[in-house]
Protein backbone atom coordinates (compact mmCIF):
# COMPACT_ATOMS: atom_id res chain seq x y z
CA UNK A 1 0.00 0.00 0.00
CA UNK A 2 1.43 3.42 -0.92
CA UNK A 3 2.52 5.60 1.97
CA UNK A 4 3.99 8.99 2.76
CA UNK A 5 7.62 8.84 3.83
CA UNK A 6 9.62 11.43 5.75
CA UNK A 7 13.31 11.92 6.41
CA UNK A 8 15.03 12.17 8.75
CA UNK A 9 13.06 10.51 11.52
CA UNK A 10 14.89 12.65 14.09
CA UNK A 11 16.79 15.89 13.57
CA UNK A 12 18.77 17.65 16.27
CA UNK A 13 19.96 21.18 15.57
CA UNK A 14 21.32 24.23 17.31
CA UNK A 15 19.17 27.31 17.75
CA UNK A 16 19.57 29.67 14.80
CA UNK A 17 20.46 26.94 12.33
CA UNK A 18 18.51 26.16 9.20
CA UNK A 19 16.81 22.80 8.82
CA UNK A 20 15.11 21.12 5.89
CA UNK A 21 12.59 18.41 6.52
CA UNK A 22 11.85 16.15 3.62
CA UNK A 23 8.76 14.29 2.56
CA UNK A 24 7.85 12.02 -0.31
CA UNK A 25 4.05 12.16 -0.72
CA UNK A 26 2.05 9.37 -2.31
CA UNK A 27 2.92 9.41 -5.99
CA UNK A 28 -0.41 10.33 -7.61
CA UNK A 29 -1.44 12.83 -4.95
CA UNK A 30 -1.68 16.50 -5.77
CA UNK A 31 -2.37 18.18 -2.41
CA UNK A 32 0.38 18.41 0.17
CA UNK A 33 0.41 19.59 3.76
CA UNK A 34 2.67 20.17 6.71
CA UNK A 35 1.52 19.92 10.32
CA UNK A 36 3.36 20.05 13.59
CA UNK A 37 2.70 18.62 17.04
CA UNK A 38 4.49 19.97 20.06
CA UNK A 39 4.93 17.27 22.68
CA UNK A 40 1.67 16.72 24.57
CA UNK A 41 -0.28 19.16 22.43
CA UNK A 42 -2.62 18.93 19.47
CA UNK A 43 -1.72 18.51 15.83
CA UNK A 44 -1.54 21.97 14.25
CA UNK A 45 -1.84 22.86 10.57
CA UNK A 46 1.04 24.82 9.05
CA UNK A 47 0.59 24.99 5.30
CA UNK A 48 -1.05 23.41 2.29
CA UNK A 49 0.40 23.29 -1.22
CA UNK A 50 -1.20 22.65 -4.58
CA UNK A 51 -0.17 23.24 -8.15
CA UNK A 52 3.27 24.42 -7.08
CA UNK A 53 2.07 27.14 -4.79
CA UNK A 54 0.88 27.64 -1.24
CA UNK A 55 -2.89 27.42 -1.11
CA UNK A 56 -3.36 28.09 2.59
CA UNK A 57 -1.18 28.81 5.61
CA UNK A 58 -1.74 29.23 9.31
CA UNK A 59 -0.52 31.98 11.64
CA UNK A 60 2.29 29.66 12.73
CA UNK A 61 3.73 29.62 9.21
CA UNK A 62 5.62 32.89 9.36
CA UNK A 63 8.57 34.16 7.30
CA UNK A 64 10.89 31.66 8.97
CA UNK A 65 9.13 28.84 7.17
CA UNK A 66 9.07 27.97 3.50
CA UNK A 67 7.96 25.00 1.44
CA UNK A 68 9.10 23.71 -1.88
CA UNK A 69 8.47 20.92 -4.30
CA UNK A 70 11.91 20.78 -5.90
CA UNK A 71 11.12 17.85 -8.18
CA UNK A 72 8.27 15.52 -9.02
CA UNK A 73 8.49 13.52 -5.83
CA UNK A 74 9.82 15.51 -2.89
CA UNK A 75 8.08 18.11 -0.74
CA UNK A 76 10.21 20.01 1.73
CA UNK A 77 9.72 22.27 4.74
CA UNK A 78 12.53 24.68 5.53
CA UNK A 79 12.91 26.51 8.81
CA UNK A 80 15.39 29.32 8.25
CA UNK A 81 16.56 30.11 11.75
CA UNK A 82 15.31 27.60 14.28
CA UNK A 83 14.09 28.61 17.72
CA UNK A 84 13.70 26.47 20.82
CA UNK A 85 9.93 26.58 20.41
CA UNK A 86 10.22 24.97 16.96
CA UNK A 87 10.97 21.69 18.73
CA UNK A 88 8.10 19.42 17.73
CA UNK A 89 7.06 16.49 15.59
CA UNK A 90 6.51 17.61 12.01
CA UNK A 91 4.09 15.61 9.89
CA UNK A 92 3.76 15.73 6.14
CA UNK A 93 0.45 14.67 4.58
CA UNK A 94 -0.93 14.31 1.09
CA UNK A 95 -4.30 13.75 -0.52
CA UNK A 96 -5.42 12.82 -4.00
CA UNK A 97 -8.07 14.06 -6.38
CA UNK A 98 -10.21 10.91 -6.08
CA UNK A 99 -10.79 11.60 -2.40
CA UNK A 100 -9.28 14.94 -1.52
CA UNK A 101 -10.76 14.77 1.97
CA UNK A 102 -8.69 11.82 3.14
CA UNK A 103 -5.26 13.00 4.14
CA UNK A 104 -2.49 10.42 4.43
CA UNK A 105 0.09 11.31 7.04
CA UNK A 106 3.73 10.35 7.15
CA UNK A 107 5.49 8.97 10.24
CA UNK A 108 6.84 12.39 11.17
CA UNK A 109 10.21 14.00 11.81
CA UNK A 110 11.04 14.78 15.40
CA UNK A 111 12.87 18.11 15.46
CA UNK A 112 14.85 18.98 18.58
CA UNK A 113 16.29 22.49 18.80
CA UNK A 114 18.99 22.93 21.44
Amino acid at each position, binding site marked *: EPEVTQTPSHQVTQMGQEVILRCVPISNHLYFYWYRQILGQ*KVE*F*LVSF*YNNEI*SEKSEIFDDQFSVERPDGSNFTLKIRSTKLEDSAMYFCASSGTRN*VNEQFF*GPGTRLTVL
Partner: protein
Amino acid sequence: SQKIEQNSEALNIQEGKTATLTCNYTNYSPAYLQWYRQDPGRGPVFLLLIRENEKEKRKERLKVTFDTTLKQSLFHITASQPADSATYLCAPGGGADGLTFGKGTHLIIQP
Protein backbone atom coordinates in the same frame (compact mmCIF):
# COMPACT_ATOMS: atom_id res chain seq x y z
CA SER B 1 -12.30 31.94 16.62
CA GLN B 2 -12.93 28.31 15.80
CA LYS B 3 -12.94 26.02 18.82
CA ILE B 4 -13.08 22.23 19.06
CA GLU B 5 -13.70 20.40 22.31
CA GLN B 6 -13.11 16.72 22.89
CA ASN B 7 -13.18 14.75 26.13
CA SER B 8 -9.98 16.05 27.64
CA GLU B 9 -9.42 13.16 30.01
CA ALA B 10 -8.65 9.57 29.16
CA LEU B 11 -11.64 7.34 28.58
CA ASN B 12 -11.39 3.87 30.09
CA ILE B 13 -13.68 1.24 28.59
CA GLN B 14 -13.90 -2.45 29.26
CA GLU B 15 -13.20 -4.75 26.32
CA GLY B 16 -16.36 -5.70 24.45
CA LYS B 17 -18.24 -2.56 25.44
CA THR B 18 -19.08 0.39 23.20
CA ALA B 19 -16.84 3.43 23.47
CA THR B 20 -18.45 6.79 22.72
CA LEU B 21 -16.32 9.85 22.10
CA THR B 22 -17.66 13.38 21.78
CA CYS B 23 -16.59 16.29 19.62
CA ASN B 24 -18.18 19.71 20.05
CA TYR B 25 -17.26 22.68 17.91
CA THR B 26 -18.11 26.37 17.92
CA ASN B 27 -17.80 29.19 15.40
CA TYR B 28 -17.83 26.68 12.57
CA SER B 29 -20.30 25.57 9.98
CA PRO B 30 -18.31 22.76 8.40
CA ALA B 31 -19.62 20.84 5.43
CA TYR B 32 -17.72 17.79 6.67
CA LEU B 33 -16.35 16.38 9.88
CA GLN B 34 -13.54 13.85 10.05
CA TRP B 35 -12.21 11.46 12.65
CA TYR B 36 -8.60 10.30 12.80
CA ARG B 37 -6.74 7.88 15.01
CA GLN B 38 -3.29 8.66 16.37
CA ASP B 39 -0.98 6.18 18.08
CA PRO B 40 1.94 7.42 20.24
CA GLY B 41 4.76 8.84 18.12
CA ARG B 42 2.87 8.24 14.87
CA GLY B 43 0.98 10.37 12.38
CA PRO B 44 -2.82 10.55 12.38
CA VAL B 45 -4.67 7.92 10.36
CA PHE B 46 -7.95 8.76 8.62
CA LEU B 47 -10.95 6.77 9.86
CA LEU B 48 -14.21 8.31 8.71
CA LEU B 49 -15.68 11.43 7.15
CA ILE B 50 -19.30 12.47 7.52
CA ARG B 51 -21.02 15.15 5.46
CA GLU B 52 -23.40 17.76 6.83
CA ASN B 53 -26.36 16.15 5.07
CA GLU B 54 -25.58 12.73 6.61
CA LYS B 55 -26.85 11.97 10.07
CA GLU B 56 -24.82 8.80 10.52
CA LYS B 57 -21.95 6.96 8.88
CA ARG B 58 -20.70 3.46 9.59
CA LYS B 59 -17.54 1.53 8.82
CA GLU B 60 -17.15 -1.93 10.32
CA ARG B 61 -17.27 -1.40 14.12
CA LEU B 62 -17.16 2.39 13.83
CA LYS B 63 -20.11 4.73 13.74
CA VAL B 64 -20.13 8.50 13.50
CA THR B 65 -23.04 10.90 13.91
CA PHE B 66 -23.10 14.56 12.97
CA ASP B 67 -25.61 17.00 14.44
CA THR B 68 -25.14 20.37 12.78
CA THR B 69 -27.74 21.98 15.04
CA LEU B 70 -25.98 20.92 18.23
CA LYS B 71 -22.59 21.37 16.53
CA GLN B 72 -21.60 17.95 17.77
CA SER B 73 -20.27 14.67 16.46
CA LEU B 74 -20.28 11.38 18.33
CA PHE B 75 -17.83 8.61 17.49
CA HIS B 76 -18.68 5.08 18.57
CA ILE B 77 -16.57 1.94 18.60
CA THR B 78 -18.66 -1.15 19.20
CA ALA B 79 -17.28 -4.42 20.57
CA SER B 80 -14.15 -2.55 21.61
CA GLN B 81 -10.79 -4.33 21.70
CA PRO B 82 -7.48 -3.48 23.41
CA ALA B 83 -6.07 -2.75 19.92
CA ASP B 84 -8.54 0.14 19.69
CA SER B 85 -6.60 1.94 22.43
CA ALA B 86 -5.29 5.17 20.90
CA THR B 87 -5.99 8.89 20.73
CA TYR B 88 -8.92 9.83 18.52
CA LEU B 89 -8.92 13.21 16.84
CA CYS B 90 -11.88 15.15 15.56
CA ALA B 91 -11.44 17.60 12.67
CA PRO B 92 -14.37 19.64 11.40
CA GLY B 93 -13.80 20.48 7.77
CA GLY B 94 -12.53 18.82 4.66
CA GLY B 95 -11.88 19.33 1.01
CA ALA B 96 -8.33 20.34 0.26
CA ASP B 97 -8.16 22.63 3.28
CA GLY B 98 -5.71 22.20 6.10
CA LEU B 99 -7.37 20.47 9.01
CA THR B 100 -7.92 21.95 12.45
CA PHE B 101 -7.79 19.13 14.95
CA GLY B 102 -9.15 18.88 18.44
CA LYS B 103 -6.79 17.87 21.25
CA GLY B 104 -8.09 14.34 20.98
CA THR B 105 -9.51 11.81 23.39
CA HIS B 106 -7.18 9.15 24.75
CA LEU B 107 -9.11 5.90 24.71
CA ILE B 108 -7.98 2.94 26.79
CA ILE B 109 -9.67 -0.42 26.28
CA GLN B 110 -9.03 -2.66 29.25
CA PRO B 111 -9.02 -6.45 28.83
